């Protein structure tokens, strides 16, 4: 049985091609993935992300419990609505999931986790959080991400004046509760915008209102190329339980201080840090022919090898790009094996594109300099 979000009918109505994603029937595109991608970089697009897991935690021990379970430190969230991106690790330092955690108040937190890991995450959290912490999976909520340079004005126009001020005042990575809904200035595209968590019964009306103001529906396909251009990892592809955040370009999400905070996976990460991380996580820009994809072999001068973890065509750059795990000694060039042929690629530091523009220097022909 494939699960449907409360927006299923709206997707069909908008001409979506539906695919199975982590057990959910989701729109991959509504006609053209590339046009949806450009709409988000240049105007505004909306993504149904109701398949993701929204889980609330309440109790005086919730903060201490999450400080033990997450590699980033929720104590850094000082005011209600503040959010941060974090990895949840196993004892070996492997990434069980990546998520966003919001502080709702002193004793309440909200986690937004991946659809494919939701059940595994909940089991892990239930076993390890103090028994006094109430865990409430918010299946009553649906979620819409509205992203792009025009997303802000489109969303703000939907609110009454008093609420509008609160939403307009949000800094990046902050959220506010507006009646039964929560509006967060977060996203997965490298553009400004909001993620809106609303009662499932209200989401179709929100979708229609945004559609009426010219916000374009965008599918999972555009979501993937947008996040890849923005240099954002995809769980299960760029990292999983077999690699640590330090091997996945996510060292910045590990809160080492205070040193006495004992989070799951800390000992393993400290050991890896002192021994030396064995690989680098980099961006690649293809100079040869073809399209970079996940799981292609990467070769550097001297013959050492790495592997691409995500790859696609970048609509903003007009070139193919990838994320890759490569040998430590990798310089600024490498080769990638595409259908048996080794194609030259340039090694760069992600992101590739954000806020409507390329972050990579290219020549007029689109070839990287």
């Amino acid at each position, binding site marked *: 049985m494939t699960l449907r979000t409360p927006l299923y009918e709206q997707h069909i109505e908008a001409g979506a*091609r539906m695919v199975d994603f982590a057990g959910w029937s989701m729109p*991959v*595109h509504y006609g*053209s*993935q*590339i046009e949806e991608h450009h709409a988000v970089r240049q105007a505004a697009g909306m993504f149904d992300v109701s398949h993701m897991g929204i889980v609330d935690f309440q109790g005086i021990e919730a903060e201490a419990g999450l400080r033990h379970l997450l590699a980033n430190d929720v104590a850094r969230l000082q005011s209600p609505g503040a959010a941060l991106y974090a990895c949840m690790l196993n004892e070996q330092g492997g990434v069980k999931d990546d998520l966003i955690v919001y502080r709702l108040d002193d004793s309440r937190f909200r986690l937004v986790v991946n659809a494919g890991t939701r059940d595994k995450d909940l089991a892990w959290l239930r076993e390890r959080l103090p028994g006094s912490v109430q865990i409430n999976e918010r299946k009553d909520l649906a979620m819409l991400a509205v992203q792009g340079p025009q997303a802000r004005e489109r969303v703000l126009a939907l609110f009454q004046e008093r609420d509008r001020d609160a939403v307009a005042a949000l800094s990046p990575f902050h959220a506010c509760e507006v009646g039964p809904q929560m509006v967060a200035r977060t996203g997965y595209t490298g553009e400004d915008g909001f993620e809106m968590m609303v009662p499932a019964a209200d989401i179709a009306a929100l979708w229609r209102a945004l559609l009426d103001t010219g916000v374009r529906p965008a599918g999972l*396909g555009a979501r993937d*190329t947008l996040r890849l251009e923005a240099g954002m990892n995809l769980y299960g592809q760029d990292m999983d339980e077999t690699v640590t955040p330090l091997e996945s370009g996510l060292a910045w999400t590990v809160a080492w201080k205070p040193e006495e905070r004992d989070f799951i996976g800390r000992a393993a990460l400290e050991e890896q840090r002192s021994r030396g991380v064995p690989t680098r996580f980099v961006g690649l820009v293809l100079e040869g*022919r*073809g*399209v970079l*994809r996940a799981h292609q072999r990467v070769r550097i001068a001297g013959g050492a090898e790495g592997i691409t973890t995500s790859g*696609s*065509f970048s*609509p903003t750059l007009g070139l*193919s790009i990838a994320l890759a795990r490569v040998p430590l000694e990798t310089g600024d060039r490498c080769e990638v094996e595409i*259908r048996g042929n080794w194609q030259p690629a340039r090694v760069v530091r992600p992101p590739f594109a954000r806020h409507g523009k390329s972050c990579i220097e290219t020549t007029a022909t689109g070839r990287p300099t």
Partner: protein
Amino acid sequence: MSNVPAELKYAKSHEWLRAESDGTCTVGISDHAQELLGDLVFVELPKVGRQVKAGEACAVVESVKAASDVYAPVNGEIVAVNDALADSPELVNSEPYADGWLFRIKADDASAIDALLSAADYAAVASAD
């Protein structure tokens, strides 16, 4: 429902073939196939002069999502390829049966063309996807 022109022949693997007056055959992928693939961003075509067997992978079409092989519908020699696709792979999406053609093949045996699927038979294959 996708467009399946009645005058063309088809392969189960979603190629179409049109017998031209000069004795060669033009080959492309069906409207149904381009719709399944989504926006094309790269096309790799065979070398002119290559001998291919029916069912042999001889071209690759890559969309934003995935790469997919294109198979020769009949035995023969590749006599021309659509160079315009190097810069404009999206022609395969917008005009799969016209400017989005992939290659021309000179069939070894013209009767092999008759053995391919009719439009009606292919439409049944496509709707079962």
